[in-house]
Protein backbone atom coordinates (compact mmCIF):
# COMPACT_ATOMS: atom_id res chain seq x y z
CA UNK A 1 0.00 0.00 0.00
CA UNK A 2 1.71 3.12 -1.22
CA UNK A 3 0.87 6.48 0.27
CA UNK A 4 0.45 9.61 -1.72
CA UNK A 5 0.04 13.15 -0.57
CA UNK A 6 -2.92 15.19 -1.71
CA UNK A 7 -1.92 18.86 -1.53
CA UNK A 8 -5.09 19.53 0.38
CA UNK A 9 -5.93 16.37 2.34
CA UNK A 10 -2.40 15.18 3.09
CA UNK A 11 -1.13 11.59 3.15
CA UNK A 12 -3.65 8.96 2.08
CA UNK A 13 -3.58 5.36 0.84
CA UNK A 14 -2.89 4.82 -2.86
CA UNK A 15 -6.38 3.38 -3.35
CA UNK A 16 -7.80 6.89 -2.96
CA UNK A 17 -5.85 8.16 -5.98
CA UNK A 18 -5.92 7.78 -9.70
CA UNK A 19 -3.15 8.52 -12.17
CA UNK A 20 -4.32 10.99 -14.81
CA UNK A 21 -1.41 11.85 -17.12
CA UNK A 22 2.20 12.88 -17.35
CA UNK A 23 2.48 16.52 -16.34
CA UNK A 24 3.57 19.32 -18.61
CA UNK A 25 1.35 18.63 -21.59
CA UNK A 26 -0.32 21.64 -23.17
CA UNK A 27 -3.47 21.07 -25.16
CA UNK A 28 -2.79 22.28 -28.71
CA UNK A 29 -5.58 24.56 -29.92
CA UNK A 30 -7.52 25.56 -31.89
CA UNK A 31 -8.25 22.24 -33.49
CA UNK A 32 -8.15 23.36 -37.13
CA UNK A 33 -4.55 24.52 -36.70
CA UNK A 34 -3.28 21.34 -35.04
CA UNK A 35 -1.64 18.64 -37.13
CA UNK A 36 -2.58 14.98 -36.77
CA UNK A 37 0.89 14.23 -35.47
CA UNK A 38 0.88 16.98 -32.85
CA UNK A 39 -2.54 15.98 -31.66
CA UNK A 40 -1.50 12.34 -31.43
CA UNK A 41 1.58 13.32 -29.46
CA UNK A 42 -0.57 15.35 -27.07
CA UNK A 43 -3.00 12.50 -26.61
CA UNK A 44 -0.64 9.57 -26.48
CA UNK A 45 3.03 10.59 -26.38
CA UNK A 46 4.77 9.88 -23.09
CA UNK A 47 8.23 9.89 -21.67
CA UNK A 48 7.61 7.02 -19.21
CA UNK A 49 10.77 8.10 -17.40
CA UNK A 50 12.85 5.85 -15.20
CA UNK A 51 13.44 7.83 -12.03
CA UNK A 52 11.89 11.16 -11.14
CA UNK A 53 8.64 11.85 -12.97
CA UNK A 54 6.08 14.66 -12.82
CA UNK A 55 2.56 13.39 -13.11
CA UNK A 56 -0.98 14.66 -12.80
CA UNK A 57 -3.02 12.71 -10.27
CA UNK A 58 -6.49 13.05 -8.87
CA UNK A 59 -7.44 12.40 -5.27
CA UNK A 60 -10.73 10.64 -5.79
CA UNK A 61 -12.32 11.31 -2.42
CA UNK A 62 -11.94 15.09 -2.64
CA UNK A 63 -11.66 15.47 -6.42
CA UNK A 64 -8.44 17.50 -6.36
CA UNK A 65 -6.22 17.31 -9.45
CA UNK A 66 -2.60 17.98 -8.62
CA UNK A 67 0.96 17.39 -9.70
CA UNK A 68 2.97 14.72 -7.95
CA UNK A 69 6.67 14.13 -8.38
CA UNK A 70 7.66 10.52 -7.84
CA UNK A 71 10.58 8.25 -8.52
CA UNK A 72 9.19 5.56 -10.78
CA UNK A 73 11.87 3.07 -9.79
CA UNK A 74 12.08 3.46 -6.01
CA UNK A 75 8.47 4.69 -5.86
CA UNK A 76 9.52 7.36 -3.42
CA UNK A 77 7.20 10.36 -3.47
CA UNK A 78 9.29 13.48 -3.92
CA UNK A 79 6.55 16.06 -3.64
CA UNK A 80 2.98 17.09 -4.36
CA UNK A 81 1.82 20.47 -5.55
CA UNK A 82 -1.57 21.97 -6.21
CA UNK A 83 -2.41 23.09 -9.73
CA UNK A 84 -1.46 26.71 -10.36
CA UNK A 85 -4.04 29.08 -8.91
CA UNK A 86 -5.39 26.64 -6.32
CA UNK A 87 -4.91 27.95 -2.82
CA UNK A 88 -6.02 27.02 0.63
Amino acid at each position, binding site marked *: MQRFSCPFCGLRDETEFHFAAEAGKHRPEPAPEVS*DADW*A*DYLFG*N*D*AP*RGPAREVWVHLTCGEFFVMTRD*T*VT*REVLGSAALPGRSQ
Partner: protein
Amino acid sequence: MQRYSAFSLLRHGLTGHRGWRPAWAKARPRAAYDAVIVGGGGHGLATAYYLAKNHGISRVAVLEKGWIGGGNTGRNTTAVRSNYFYPESVALYDLSLRLYERLSRALNYNVMLSQRGMLIAAHTPAQMEICARIANAMQLNGVDGHLMGAEEAVRRIPLLNQTADARFRCLGGVWQGRAGVARHDAVAWGYARAASALGVDIIENCAVTGLDVQGGRICGVDTTLGRIRTERVGLAAAGATPGLAALTGVRLPIHTYALQAFVSEPVKPMLDTVLLYLGTGTYVSQSDKGELVIGGGLDRVPTHGQRGNLPAQETVISGLLEMFPAFAQLKLLRQWAGVVDVVPDSSPVIGPVGPGGLYVNCGWGTGGFKAIPAGGWLLAHLLATGAHHEISRPFDLDRFARGRLIDEAAGSGIAH
Protein backbone atom coordinates in the same frame (compact mmCIF):
# COMPACT_ATOMS: atom_id res chain seq x y z
CA MET B 1 23.13 -28.23 -32.37
CA GLN B 2 23.13 -31.20 -30.06
CA ARG B 3 19.88 -33.05 -30.69
CA TYR B 4 17.44 -33.39 -27.77
CA SER B 5 15.29 -36.51 -27.69
CA ALA B 6 14.28 -39.35 -25.41
CA PHE B 7 17.00 -41.40 -27.03
CA SER B 8 19.72 -38.83 -26.46
CA LEU B 9 18.56 -38.47 -22.86
CA LEU B 10 18.94 -42.22 -22.37
CA ARG B 11 22.33 -42.22 -24.02
CA HIS B 12 23.64 -39.33 -21.94
CA GLY B 13 22.10 -40.87 -18.84
CA LEU B 14 24.48 -43.79 -19.23
CA THR B 15 27.44 -41.43 -19.14
CA GLY B 16 26.29 -39.32 -16.24
CA HIS B 17 25.08 -36.51 -18.50
CA ARG B 18 28.63 -35.27 -18.80
CA GLY B 19 28.23 -34.85 -22.56
CA TRP B 20 25.64 -32.11 -22.65
CA ARG B 21 27.02 -28.90 -24.06
CA PRO B 22 25.88 -25.36 -23.22
CA ALA B 23 22.42 -24.67 -24.58
CA TRP B 24 23.59 -21.40 -26.09
CA ALA B 25 27.09 -19.98 -26.47
CA LYS B 26 28.13 -17.21 -24.12
CA ALA B 27 29.17 -14.64 -26.68
CA ARG B 28 31.26 -11.48 -26.42
CA PRO B 29 30.32 -8.64 -28.74
CA ARG B 30 32.04 -8.43 -32.11
CA ALA B 31 32.81 -5.09 -33.76
CA ALA B 32 29.96 -5.13 -36.21
CA TYR B 33 26.74 -6.97 -36.96
CA ASP B 34 24.17 -6.98 -39.74
CA ALA B 35 21.53 -6.41 -37.12
CA VAL B 36 21.46 -5.81 -33.40
CA ILE B 37 18.48 -6.68 -31.26
CA VAL B 38 18.15 -4.97 -27.92
CA GLY B 39 16.38 -7.12 -25.35
CA GLY B 40 17.06 -10.80 -24.66
CA GLY B 41 13.51 -11.73 -23.81
CA GLY B 42 11.31 -14.00 -25.85
CA HIS B 43 10.59 -11.38 -28.49
CA GLY B 44 14.24 -10.42 -28.99
CA LEU B 45 15.48 -14.00 -29.10
CA ALA B 46 12.69 -15.03 -31.47
CA THR B 47 13.55 -12.08 -33.71
CA ALA B 48 17.15 -13.25 -33.90
CA TYR B 49 16.08 -16.81 -34.61
CA TYR B 50 13.73 -15.83 -37.42
CA LEU B 51 16.28 -13.41 -38.90
CA ALA B 52 18.65 -16.30 -39.24
CA LYS B 53 16.09 -18.96 -40.08
CA ASN B 54 13.71 -17.09 -42.41
CA HIS B 55 15.99 -14.47 -43.87
CA GLY B 56 19.44 -16.03 -43.72
CA ILE B 57 20.83 -13.15 -41.69
CA SER B 58 22.85 -14.64 -38.89
CA ARG B 59 25.45 -11.96 -38.23
CA VAL B 60 23.11 -10.84 -35.48
CA ALA B 61 23.61 -9.93 -31.85
CA VAL B 62 21.03 -10.03 -29.08
CA LEU B 63 22.02 -7.66 -26.28
CA GLU B 64 20.56 -8.40 -22.86
CA LYS B 65 21.34 -6.19 -19.90
CA GLY B 66 20.71 -9.04 -17.42
CA TRP B 67 20.10 -12.71 -18.07
CA ILE B 68 17.98 -13.89 -20.98
CA GLY B 69 14.30 -14.40 -20.37
CA GLY B 70 14.53 -12.49 -17.12
CA GLY B 71 12.02 -9.77 -17.92
CA ASN B 72 8.39 -10.24 -18.73
CA THR B 73 9.12 -13.50 -20.57
CA GLY B 74 9.84 -15.07 -17.21
CA ARG B 75 7.25 -13.09 -15.26
CA ASN B 76 3.89 -13.88 -16.79
CA THR B 77 1.07 -16.36 -16.46
CA THR B 78 2.06 -18.24 -19.64
CA ALA B 79 -1.28 -18.15 -21.44
CA VAL B 80 -1.28 -18.44 -25.23
CA ARG B 81 -4.44 -17.72 -27.20
CA SER B 82 -5.92 -15.79 -30.10
CA ASN B 83 -9.44 -15.11 -28.84
CA TYR B 84 -9.56 -11.54 -30.10
CA PHE B 85 -12.18 -9.32 -31.67
CA TYR B 86 -10.58 -7.24 -34.39
CA PRO B 87 -9.34 -9.01 -37.55
CA GLU B 88 -5.97 -7.29 -37.18
CA SER B 89 -5.55 -8.74 -33.68
CA VAL B 90 -6.73 -12.17 -34.70
CA ALA B 91 -4.28 -12.26 -37.60
CA LEU B 92 -1.43 -11.32 -35.30
CA TYR B 93 -2.20 -13.59 -32.38
CA ASP B 94 -3.23 -16.52 -34.49
CA LEU B 95 0.03 -16.35 -36.42
CA SER B 96 1.62 -16.59 -33.02
CA LEU B 97 -0.50 -19.49 -31.90
CA ARG B 98 0.16 -21.38 -35.11
CA LEU B 99 3.91 -20.87 -34.65
CA TYR B 100 3.58 -22.04 -31.04
CA GLU B 101 1.87 -25.18 -32.24
CA ARG B 102 5.03 -26.12 -34.14
CA LEU B 103 7.55 -24.54 -31.84
CA SER B 104 8.83 -27.47 -29.78
CA ARG B 105 9.76 -29.36 -32.92
CA ALA B 106 11.05 -26.34 -34.76
CA LEU B 107 13.38 -25.48 -31.90
CA ASN B 108 13.98 -29.06 -30.73
CA TYR B 109 13.21 -27.79 -27.25
CA ASN B 110 10.04 -28.77 -25.43
CA VAL B 111 8.16 -25.57 -24.65
CA MET B 112 5.36 -27.69 -23.19
CA LEU B 113 2.55 -26.15 -25.14
CA SER B 114 -0.60 -27.38 -23.48
CA GLN B 115 -3.66 -26.51 -25.56
CA ARG B 116 -6.10 -27.16 -22.79
CA GLY B 117 -8.53 -24.45 -23.88
CA MET B 118 -9.53 -21.14 -22.40
CA LEU B 119 -12.87 -19.78 -21.29
CA ILE B 120 -13.70 -16.10 -20.98
CA ALA B 121 -16.59 -16.37 -18.55
CA ALA B 122 -19.62 -14.07 -18.62
CA HIS B 123 -22.11 -13.42 -15.85
CA THR B 124 -24.92 -11.32 -17.26
CA PRO B 125 -27.02 -11.57 -20.41
CA ALA B 126 -25.31 -8.39 -21.62
CA GLN B 127 -21.89 -9.98 -21.21
CA MET B 128 -23.09 -13.11 -23.01
CA GLU B 129 -24.10 -10.91 -25.93
CA ILE B 130 -20.60 -9.46 -26.04
CA CYS B 131 -19.23 -13.00 -25.92
CA ALA B 132 -21.41 -13.89 -28.89
CA ARG B 133 -20.00 -10.89 -30.74
CA ILE B 134 -16.47 -12.12 -30.03
CA ALA B 135 -17.17 -15.76 -30.88
CA ASN B 136 -18.69 -14.68 -34.20
CA ALA B 137 -15.77 -12.37 -34.90
CA MET B 138 -13.35 -15.20 -34.22
CA GLN B 139 -15.23 -17.61 -36.46
CA LEU B 140 -15.40 -15.08 -39.27
CA ASN B 141 -11.68 -14.60 -38.90
CA GLY B 142 -11.07 -18.31 -39.19
CA VAL B 143 -10.27 -18.97 -35.55
CA ASP B 144 -11.80 -21.62 -33.34
CA GLY B 145 -14.17 -19.52 -31.25
CA HIS B 146 -17.10 -21.18 -29.57
CA LEU B 147 -19.95 -19.68 -27.55
CA MET B 148 -20.14 -21.97 -24.56
CA GLY B 149 -23.15 -22.33 -22.30
CA ALA B 150 -23.16 -22.57 -18.53
CA GLU B 151 -23.64 -26.31 -18.49
CA GLU B 152 -20.57 -27.05 -20.55
CA ALA B 153 -18.56 -24.49 -18.62
CA VAL B 154 -19.39 -26.19 -15.34
CA ARG B 155 -18.68 -29.60 -16.82
CA ARG B 156 -15.20 -28.45 -17.81
CA ILE B 157 -14.60 -26.47 -14.62
CA PRO B 158 -16.53 -28.24 -11.88
CA LEU B 159 -15.14 -26.17 -9.02
CA LEU B 160 -16.65 -22.93 -10.35
CA ASN B 161 -18.68 -21.06 -7.79
CA GLN B 162 -22.26 -21.52 -8.98
CA THR B 163 -23.85 -21.37 -5.54
CA ALA B 164 -26.70 -19.03 -4.66
CA ASP B 165 -24.16 -16.86 -2.87
CA ALA B 166 -21.86 -16.46 -5.86
CA ARG B 167 -21.37 -12.83 -6.79
CA PHE B 168 -20.79 -13.74 -10.41
CA ARG B 169 -22.42 -16.94 -11.52
CA CYS B 170 -21.01 -18.20 -14.81
CA LEU B 171 -23.53 -18.11 -17.64
CA GLY B 172 -20.98 -19.41 -20.12
CA GLY B 173 -18.70 -17.44 -22.37
CA VAL B 174 -16.23 -17.59 -25.23
CA TRP B 175 -14.23 -20.78 -25.51
CA GLN B 176 -11.10 -21.28 -27.55
CA GLY B 177 -9.98 -24.87 -27.59
CA ARG B 178 -6.56 -24.17 -29.09
CA ALA B 179 -5.68 -21.72 -26.35
CA GLY B 180 -3.59 -22.90 -23.46
CA VAL B 181 -0.32 -22.42 -21.67
CA ALA B 182 3.34 -22.99 -22.42
CA ARG B 183 6.48 -23.10 -20.31
CA HIS B 184 7.74 -19.54 -20.36
CA ASP B 185 11.43 -20.10 -19.61
CA ALA B 186 11.61 -22.85 -22.20
CA VAL B 187 10.42 -20.46 -24.90
CA ALA B 188 13.30 -18.08 -24.17
CA TRP B 189 15.87 -20.85 -23.81
CA GLY B 190 14.62 -22.74 -26.83
CA TYR B 191 14.86 -19.69 -29.09
CA ALA B 192 18.25 -18.81 -27.61
CA ARG B 193 19.60 -22.28 -28.24
CA ALA B 194 18.27 -22.46 -31.79
CA ALA B 195 19.42 -18.95 -32.65
CA SER B 196 22.84 -19.60 -31.17
CA ALA B 197 23.14 -22.74 -33.26
CA LEU B 198 22.43 -20.64 -36.37
CA GLY B 199 25.28 -18.30 -35.49
CA VAL B 200 23.53 -15.56 -33.54
CA ASP B 201 25.55 -14.01 -30.71
CA ILE B 202 23.62 -13.89 -27.45
CA ILE B 203 25.34 -11.41 -25.17
CA GLU B 204 24.14 -11.24 -21.58
CA ASN B 205 25.03 -8.59 -19.01
CA CYS B 206 25.38 -6.03 -21.76
CA ALA B 207 23.33 -2.86 -21.42
CA VAL B 208 22.76 -0.40 -24.23
CA THR B 209 23.79 3.14 -23.33
CA GLY B 210 23.42 4.92 -26.64
CA LEU B 211 22.20 4.63 -30.21
CA ASP B 212 24.45 6.23 -32.81
CA VAL B 213 22.65 8.11 -35.53
CA GLN B 214 24.35 9.74 -38.50
CA GLY B 215 22.59 11.39 -41.39
CA GLY B 216 19.28 10.26 -40.05
CA ARG B 217 20.26 6.60 -39.99
CA ILE B 218 21.31 4.24 -37.28
CA CYS B 219 24.97 3.37 -37.51
CA GLY B 220 25.79 1.77 -34.22
CA VAL B 221 25.01 0.92 -30.64
CA ASP B 222 26.95 1.95 -27.54
CA THR B 223 26.97 -0.65 -24.82
CA THR B 224 28.57 -1.30 -21.48
CA LEU B 225 30.81 -3.73 -23.38
CA GLY B 226 31.80 -1.19 -26.00
CA ARG B 227 30.58 0.17 -29.33
CA ILE B 228 29.01 -2.08 -31.94
CA ARG B 229 28.59 -1.05 -35.57
CA THR B 230 25.32 -1.91 -37.22
CA GLU B 231 22.83 -0.32 -39.57
CA ARG B 232 19.80 -2.11 -38.27
CA VAL B 233 18.56 -2.11 -34.70
CA GLY B 234 15.46 -3.75 -33.32
CA LEU B 235 14.20 -2.73 -29.89
CA ALA B 236 12.31 -5.46 -28.06
CA ALA B 237 12.78 -4.38 -24.47
CA ALA B 238 9.20 -3.99 -23.13
CA GLY B 239 9.20 -1.39 -20.36
CA ALA B 240 12.74 -0.29 -21.20
CA THR B 241 11.81 0.51 -24.81
CA PRO B 242 10.62 4.10 -24.19
CA GLY B 243 13.96 4.94 -22.60
CA LEU B 244 15.87 3.36 -25.50
CA ALA B 245 13.74 5.12 -28.11
CA ALA B 246 14.23 8.38 -26.25
CA LEU B 247 17.97 8.06 -26.98
CA THR B 248 17.02 9.09 -30.52
CA GLY B 249 14.40 11.62 -29.46
CA VAL B 250 11.42 9.37 -30.18
CA ARG B 251 8.41 9.51 -27.85
CA LEU B 252 6.24 6.42 -27.72
CA PRO B 253 2.62 6.16 -26.58
CA ILE B 254 3.60 4.02 -23.63
CA HIS B 255 3.01 4.01 -19.91
CA THR B 256 4.82 1.45 -17.82
CA TYR B 257 3.04 -0.39 -15.02
CA ALA B 258 3.72 -3.32 -12.76
CA LEU B 259 1.68 -6.40 -13.54
CA GLN B 260 1.65 -9.00 -10.81
CA ALA B 261 1.33 -12.72 -10.99
CA PHE B 262 0.86 -15.21 -8.20
CA VAL B 263 1.52 -18.88 -7.63
CA SER B 264 -0.12 -21.08 -5.02
CA GLU B 265 1.29 -24.16 -3.36
CA PRO B 266 0.97 -27.18 -5.65
CA VAL B 267 -1.96 -29.56 -5.44
CA LYS B 268 -3.11 -32.50 -7.51
CA PRO B 269 -4.92 -31.59 -10.78
CA MET B 270 -8.26 -29.85 -10.28
CA LEU B 271 -8.42 -27.16 -12.96
CA ASP B 272 -7.93 -28.26 -16.55
CA THR B 273 -8.43 -25.05 -18.50
CA VAL B 274 -7.36 -21.44 -18.55
CA LEU B 275 -10.11 -19.23 -17.17
CA LEU B 276 -10.68 -15.48 -17.31
CA TYR B 277 -13.61 -14.16 -15.29
CA LEU B 278 -15.12 -10.94 -16.57
CA GLY B 279 -16.69 -10.21 -13.20
CA THR B 280 -13.48 -10.28 -11.20
CA GLY B 281 -10.86 -9.66 -13.87
CA THR B 282 -8.87 -12.54 -12.39
CA TYR B 283 -7.46 -15.26 -14.60
CA VAL B 284 -6.07 -18.58 -13.54
CA SER B 285 -4.70 -21.88 -14.71
CA GLN B 286 -2.99 -24.80 -13.00
CA SER B 287 0.58 -25.50 -13.96
CA ASP B 288 1.91 -28.95 -14.71
CA LYS B 289 3.59 -28.84 -11.34
CA GLY B 290 0.19 -28.38 -9.70
CA GLU B 291 0.49 -24.73 -8.71
CA LEU B 292 -2.26 -22.28 -9.51
CA VAL B 293 -0.92 -19.53 -11.70
CA ILE B 294 -2.97 -16.41 -11.08
CA GLY B 295 -3.11 -12.99 -12.66
CA GLY B 296 -5.35 -9.96 -12.88
CA GLY B 297 -5.32 -6.25 -13.40
CA LEU B 298 -2.41 -3.85 -13.32
CA ASP B 299 -1.11 -1.96 -10.33
CA ARG B 300 -2.34 1.38 -11.65
CA VAL B 301 0.66 3.41 -10.62
CA PRO B 302 3.19 4.04 -13.40
CA THR B 303 6.46 2.43 -12.45
CA HIS B 304 9.66 0.81 -13.60
CA GLY B 305 10.02 -1.18 -10.37
CA GLN B 306 9.48 -4.92 -10.63
CA ARG B 307 7.56 -5.13 -7.38
CA GLY B 308 3.93 -5.80 -6.64
CA ASN B 309 1.75 -4.01 -4.17
CA LEU B 310 -0.90 -5.17 -1.77
CA PRO B 311 -4.08 -3.53 -3.12
CA ALA B 312 -3.80 -5.25 -6.48
CA GLN B 313 -2.95 -8.53 -4.72
CA GLU B 314 -6.06 -8.29 -2.61
CA THR B 315 -8.19 -7.54 -5.64
CA VAL B 316 -6.85 -10.42 -7.68
CA ILE B 317 -6.86 -12.98 -4.87
CA SER B 318 -10.30 -12.05 -3.57
CA GLY B 319 -11.49 -12.33 -7.15
CA LEU B 320 -10.02 -15.80 -7.41
CA LEU B 321 -11.70 -16.95 -4.21
CA GLU B 322 -15.00 -15.53 -5.40
CA MET B 323 -14.63 -17.71 -8.50
CA PHE B 324 -13.42 -20.77 -6.58
CA PRO B 325 -14.25 -20.68 -2.85
CA ALA B 326 -12.45 -24.01 -2.39
CA PHE B 327 -9.16 -22.35 -3.36
CA ALA B 328 -9.25 -20.56 -0.01
CA GLN B 329 -7.66 -23.77 1.30
CA LEU B 330 -4.48 -22.92 -0.57
CA LYS B 331 -1.59 -20.68 0.29
CA LEU B 332 0.24 -18.08 -1.73
CA LEU B 333 3.68 -19.43 -2.52
CA ARG B 334 5.22 -16.82 -4.79
CA GLN B 335 4.33 -13.44 -6.14
CA TRP B 336 6.19 -11.25 -8.57
CA ALA B 337 5.69 -8.36 -10.96
CA GLY B 338 6.84 -7.48 -14.43
CA VAL B 339 7.06 -3.99 -15.84
CA VAL B 340 4.68 -3.94 -18.76
CA ASP B 341 4.58 -1.36 -21.51
CA VAL B 342 0.98 -0.36 -21.97
CA VAL B 343 -0.27 1.47 -25.05
CA PRO B 344 -3.59 3.38 -24.95
CA ASP B 345 -5.30 0.84 -27.16
CA SER B 346 -3.53 -2.11 -25.52
CA SER B 347 -2.22 -3.30 -28.87
CA PRO B 348 1.47 -3.52 -29.67
CA VAL B 349 3.58 -1.08 -31.61
CA ILE B 350 5.57 -2.79 -34.36
CA GLY B 351 7.39 -0.88 -37.02
CA PRO B 352 9.98 1.76 -37.85
CA VAL B 353 10.47 4.70 -35.50
CA GLY B 354 12.80 7.68 -35.66
CA PRO B 355 16.06 7.27 -37.59
CA GLY B 356 16.34 4.92 -40.54
CA GLY B 357 17.14 1.37 -39.57
CA LEU B 358 15.51 1.58 -36.12
CA TYR B 359 12.50 -0.64 -35.46
CA VAL B 360 10.49 -1.37 -32.34
CA ASN B 361 8.46 -4.31 -31.16
CA CYS B 362 6.87 -3.13 -27.93
CA GLY B 363 3.67 -2.11 -26.23
CA TRP B 364 2.55 -5.68 -25.60
CA GLY B 365 1.28 -4.64 -22.20
CA THR B 366 -0.12 -7.58 -20.32
CA GLY B 367 -0.14 -9.94 -23.26
CA GLY B 368 3.35 -10.24 -24.68
CA PHE B 369 4.12 -13.85 -23.90
CA LYS B 370 1.50 -15.30 -26.21
CA ALA B 371 2.81 -13.10 -29.02
CA ILE B 372 6.49 -14.05 -28.80
CA PRO B 373 6.72 -16.11 -32.00
CA ALA B 374 4.72 -13.58 -34.04
CA GLY B 375 6.53 -10.61 -32.53
CA GLY B 376 9.84 -12.18 -33.47
CA TRP B 377 8.64 -13.23 -36.90
CA LEU B 378 7.37 -9.72 -37.74
CA LEU B 379 10.29 -7.76 -36.31
CA ALA B 380 12.65 -10.06 -38.20
CA HIS B 381 10.71 -9.32 -41.36
CA LEU B 382 11.05 -5.58 -40.77
CA LEU B 383 14.76 -5.80 -40.00
CA ALA B 384 15.45 -8.00 -42.99
CA THR B 385 13.30 -6.25 -45.60
CA GLY B 386 12.88 -2.75 -44.20
CA ALA B 387 9.15 -3.11 -44.85
CA HIS B 388 6.13 -4.27 -42.91
CA HIS B 389 4.75 -7.76 -43.13
CA GLU B 390 1.04 -7.36 -43.91
CA ILE B 391 0.17 -8.58 -40.42
CA SER B 392 2.28 -5.96 -38.67
CA ARG B 393 1.19 -3.05 -40.87
CA PRO B 394 -1.89 -2.11 -38.80
CA PHE B 395 0.25 -2.02 -35.68
CA ASP B 396 2.57 0.68 -36.96
CA LEU B 397 3.04 3.73 -34.76
CA ASP B 398 1.29 5.82 -37.39
CA ARG B 399 -2.09 4.48 -36.28
CA PHE B 400 -2.19 7.04 -33.49
CA ALA B 401 -1.99 9.99 -35.83
CA ARG B 402 -4.37 8.35 -38.29
CA GLY B 403 -6.82 7.75 -35.47
CA ARG B 404 -7.11 4.03 -36.16
CA LEU B 405 -6.57 2.52 -32.76
CA ILE B 406 -7.00 -1.22 -32.31
CA ASP B 407 -8.65 -1.17 -28.93
CA GLU B 408 -9.82 -4.62 -27.96
CA ALA B 409 -11.13 -3.51 -24.56
CA ALA B 410 -13.27 -0.85 -26.15
CA GLY B 411 -14.20 -2.98 -29.15
CA SER B 412 -15.33 -5.99 -27.23
CA GLY B 413 -15.71 -4.73 -23.70
CA ILE B 414 -13.09 -7.25 -22.69
CA ALA B 415 -9.68 -6.18 -21.52
CA HIS B 416 -7.05 -8.70 -22.49
